[in-house]
C-alpha cells in the first residue's frame, strides 16, 4: 500500500554545513541505490534519494541539503522526531561492470555513496569522483574510503583535492584507466558534460535525473520528460545512456509544479 509509514529519526549525521543525514530503522527488502523515498513532514512531501541502505542493521538513511522551506524544516528535526516515508520508488542503479567510475556532484553524492557501498560489497572496483564547491562541503569521504572504493576529490576553490570541476577530474580518470561503466548523479549541467564525454569513450553509463514530483506513483505526469514521455519516478530516476539520448530535454530545461518549463 503506497501510504507514508511514520518512523522516528534514529540518528542524525552532520555531513557538512548544509547537509544532514537522517537514519531510520527500516526493514530493508528490495531497496537499491539510486531509488528514492517520498518524505512527508506532515506539511509537505518531497523526493529524497536513499543515501544509506543497510540490510544487516535494517537501517536506511536520507541525506538532505538545506535549500528551501521544506529542507530547512527537516534540518530542524531532532532524534526521536517523526517523518512519514513511502517508497522505495523508481529504478535504481544497475550494479554491474568490473571497474566503475562513479561521479557525484554536490548532494548528488547521496545515491553515489550508497552505490559505492553496495557495489564494493559485490566485488566491483569503484572509483569515485566526489565534487563539491569547497572542502567543508565534500560529502561522505569516510564512508567511501571504508567501503573500499578509491576516492578522488575535487573542489571548485581548490581547498581539497583537484582544483576544478568534477567533469575535468572524470575526464582525467577516463583517459588514464580502463572503466567499463560510469554512473553519475549531480547537477544536470555536470551530468550533460559527462554524458558527452562518455559517449566519446563508448562506455556504458547510467545517470540519475531530478524532476519535480508529486505522486511518485506514475500517475500525475508531473515528472515526465520529453520526448519519450517517460516518468522519472517510475522509468527513472536512473537512465542508461541510450535512453538519455532520447531524453531531448536533458541538460536543457525542466518543468515546475505547474508544468511550466525552465531553462537548466
Amino acid at each position, binding site marked *: 500500500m503506497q501510504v507514508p509509514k511514520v518512523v522516528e529519526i534514529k540518528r542524525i549525521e552532520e555531513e557538512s554545513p548544509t547537509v544532514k543525514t537522517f537514519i531510520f530503522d527500516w526493514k530493508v527488502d528490495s531497496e537499491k541505490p539510486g531509488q528514492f523515498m517520498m518524505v*512527508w513532514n506532515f506539511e509537505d512531501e518531497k523526493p529524497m534519494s536513499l543515501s544509506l541502505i543497510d540490510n544487516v542493521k535494517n537501517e536506511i538513511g536520507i541525506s538532505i541539503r538545506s535549500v528551501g522551506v521544506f529542507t530547512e524544516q527537516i534540518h530542524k528535526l531532532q532524534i526521536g522526531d517523526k517523518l512519514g516515508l513511502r517508497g522505495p520508488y523508481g529504478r535504481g542503479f544497475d550494479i554491474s561492470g568490473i571497474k566503475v567510475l562513479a561521479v557525484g556532484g554536490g548532494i548528488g553524492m547521496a545515491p553515489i555513496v550508497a552505490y559505492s557501498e553496495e557495489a564494493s560489497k559485490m566485488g566491483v572496483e569503484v572509483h569515485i569522483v566526489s565534487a563539491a564547491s569547497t572542502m567543508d562541503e565534500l560529502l561522505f569521504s569516510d564512508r567511501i574510503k571504508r567501503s573500499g572504493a578509491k576516492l578522488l576529490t575535487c573542489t571548485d576553490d581548490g581547498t581539497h583535492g583537484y582544483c576544478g570541476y568534477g567533469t575535468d577530474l572524470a575526464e582525467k580518470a577516463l583517459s588514464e584507466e580502463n572503466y567499463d561503466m560510469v554512473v553519475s548523479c549531480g547537477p544536470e549541467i555536470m551530468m550533460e558534460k559527462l554524458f558527452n564525454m562518455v559517449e566519446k569513450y563508448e562506455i556504458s553509463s547510467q545517470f540519475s535525473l531530478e524532476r519535480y514530483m508529486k505522486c511518485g506513483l506514475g500517475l500525475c505526469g508531473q515528472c515526465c520528460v520529453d520526448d519519450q*514521455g517517460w516518468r522519472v519516478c517510475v522509468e527513472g530516476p536512473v537512465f542508461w545512456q541510450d535512453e538519455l539520448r532520447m531524453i531531448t530535454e536533458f541538460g536543457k530545461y525542466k518543468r515546475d509544479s505547474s508544468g511550466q518549463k525552465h531553462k537548466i
Partner: protein
Amino acid sequence: MLAAGILGSTASSLNWAGRSGAGAVVTKSFGLNPNKGYANPTTVEVTGGVINAIGLSNPGVENFKTELEKLNKSVPAIASLYGANPEEFSEIATRVEDLVDALELNVSCPHAMGGCGSAIGQDPELTREIVQSVKKSVKIPVFVKLTPNVTDIVEIARSAEDVGADALTMINSLGPGMRIDIETGNPILNNKFGGLSGPAVKPIAIRCIYEVYDSVDIPIIGVGGIRNYEDVIEFLYAGASCIQIGTSIMYEGMDIFGKILTGLERFMDDKGYGSVNGMVGIAHK
C-alpha cells in the same frame, strides 16, 4: 483512451499513451492561467485505488498550446478544459480548437478551487450554460465529463444533451474521500480531501452509465476503475461505447492498453462479436 489527468500534461506522455495502444488520448485538464495545484502530499493509496488532490495543476492554456502543437496525431487527441464560468470555458475552447479533435469539459473535479469542477457539474443550469456557450464557440465535438456526486445523474446528463453535448464521459473521481495517518492523527493529503479513483469506484461508474444510457441518445465514454478487459466488457454492456483508463496505469504501467486490447479481441472472437457496437448496452434487456 487515456483518461484526463493521468500523465497527459505533456505532448510526450500523450504520444507515449498513443504508442502504447490507447485509441485516443485526453489531456490533463487545463485552464486559462498557470496553476501550481495543491502542495504535496497530493496522492495517497487506499484500498481499491487512490485519493488525489492534485488541484488541476497546469501551465495555462498558452503554454499548453505549445504542447498540443507537438502531438504526433497518431491517435485523436481530446483537450480537457476547466474554468469557472461559460466565458472562461469558451475562451479556452476557442484558443485550442484548431489543435485537437474534440474537447472534454471537466465540470466534475471533486477537489477544484474557486468554483471550478464539480461545483458546476452538480448544477444542471450552470452545466447547461457552459455546454451551450462552448458549443456556440467551436465546431469540433464537445464531450461533457460528469461527476457521480449528485442525487440524480440523469438530470445533469439530459441537460448536457439538450444543449448539444456530443458525448458524455462518466465518471470523474468520487467523493471526495480522506485518509488519516494513525501514528500521528494527521490527514495525509495536504488538501485533506481528495477524489477517489481506481477499481473501488467501478461499480458506481457502471451504475451511473447504466442509468444514463436509457435516458440519452448521445454516446457514453466510460471511465472509473478499469483494470482489465473483463472490466471493459462490463462498461460496454452497461452502455458505454468506448472507455478510458486512468488509475490502473499505476498497477499495470503503460502496457495496460495493449493487454486489454488483446484480451478484448480474444473475448469477442470467442463470443462471436463482430464489433464493439454489438456489445454496447447489452445489459438493458
